[in-house]
């Protein structure tokens, strides 16, 4: 950490009373290492411990952190969002990121440059949705972000 960043970090601590309207500083205290079915090492950080068991149901293995730099997933369960039915999954791609929305308050982005995925999950995202849709998508997008040659294999087709 550079001197400038250290000074900035101290300032952030001292300015803990300033607004955080976007929930950027909401804590994600649970941290586990996972290995996806395509053997990608992931460090998942979340505030919802149920996501750990759901990740295992999605076929991921709990592992120890190794020497490999993991892909970081920060998944925040947004308890304040009212539950709404998920009507559709909409996805977009930009130069460095994949973006996916599942509805109001539920969206995530996978950043290939930083090897990170950030997501906010509304209450409507049930275990079934996590296991069938969110974790497989996160896994395949993280793999594409790590190995861009896999992009063609993205198994997400338009369907009604």
């Amino acid at each position, binding site marked *: 950490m550079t001197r400038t960043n250290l000074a900035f970090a101290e300032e952030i601590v001292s300015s803990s009373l300033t607004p955080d*309207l976007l929930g*950027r500083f909401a804590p994600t205290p649970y941290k586990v290492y996972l290995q996806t079915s395509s053997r990608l090492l992931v460090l998942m950080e979340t505030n919802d411990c149920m996501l750990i068991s759901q990740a295992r149901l999605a076929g991921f293995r709990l592992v120890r952190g190794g020497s490999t730099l993991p892909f970081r997933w920060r998944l925040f369960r947004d308890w304040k969002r009212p539950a709404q039915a*998920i009507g559709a*999954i909409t996805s977009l791609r930009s130069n460095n990121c994949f973006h996916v929305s599942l509805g*109001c308050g539920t969206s995530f982005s996978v950043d290939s440059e930083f090897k990170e995925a950030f997501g906010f999950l509304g209450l409507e995202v049930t275990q079934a949705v996590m296991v069938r849709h969110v974790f497989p998508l996160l896994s395949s997008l993280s793999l594409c972000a790590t190995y861009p040659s896999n992009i063609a294999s993205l198994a997400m*087709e338009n369907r009604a």
Partner: protein
Amino acid sequence: MIVRNHFAEPQLEHEAVLSIAGKNFGLRTNSEVLMAVLTRAYPREGFLGSAFDVVFDIRVDNAAEKNELPAPCFRGTEHLVFATFGSRTFFTFDLLRNYVVGVVPSHRTHDRAFWQRILIPIMIGVMGPSVGIAPLHCACLVRKSEGIMISGLSGAGKSTLSVALAQCGFNLLSDDWTYVTQLNSGLTAFGLSVPVKLLPDAPQFFPDLNQFTPAPSLNGELAYEVNAVDAFHVGQATNCTPRRFFLLQRSLNPACTFRSLATRDVNNWLEQSAERLPKRLAAAHNRRRAIIHEVAKLESFVFETGLSPHASAQALKDFCDSH
């Protein structure tokens, strides 16, 4: 479940430059209609270069069915901020790469209120610090080409005082959020011509409001959101050079007072009202801090009033004239 995957769709073929709050946005879209709507609202001003401050990619989904705009949700972490309006309208703001990407259903392209009242103000508010704009929670009014900024706690009466000032000869730039940047010509404040927001008790001061009906605003609060020019026949400004800063405080005493405010106090007030930024956005934080520092150097006063909005506005006008 319906899946709308835009990963592999072709490049966005329509390109234009939008000038918003003194910055240049490179718009790319697949919709000619949307390009026309946005270029009319934010015409290019004096941009001759090729590097945009922000690249703004909007994909219009012609297959999505028509629906009402759902309540928005804004969330952010590290350098990314998400704005979702249901599942068919969503935007991601990348504050490190100065890049905005989004998708909207085709019927939203014509919805000027969505773009001008909601999406563009959100975009400037979120992306501002990354491109050298400080979004400040202040009203701003202009008279004789000089701007006054009025800050205060929520509920202090900034909007009410702003409309009253506009009715006594000031041009209204903003009643809520003012976007300040440092141009070659100096500190410049911009407004985005969004409607003024007045609480349900406002008709007692502004009878013109009786022709309107209050409705839930973006934050769920019941309010009158009206175009001030149309509703009150007042003048509007789009930018100005700010000269004075007032911190508005309500008082139970039926009088008004002005007292000087130190640079350090203005600086602290504005810093504490600004959204916290993560470490990764240290450069954006520093840009915003530099602008706030310049705003804090303006001649500043605490304006404490227990008078009616119009009497307060007259007192403020007299004070500005005599200083």
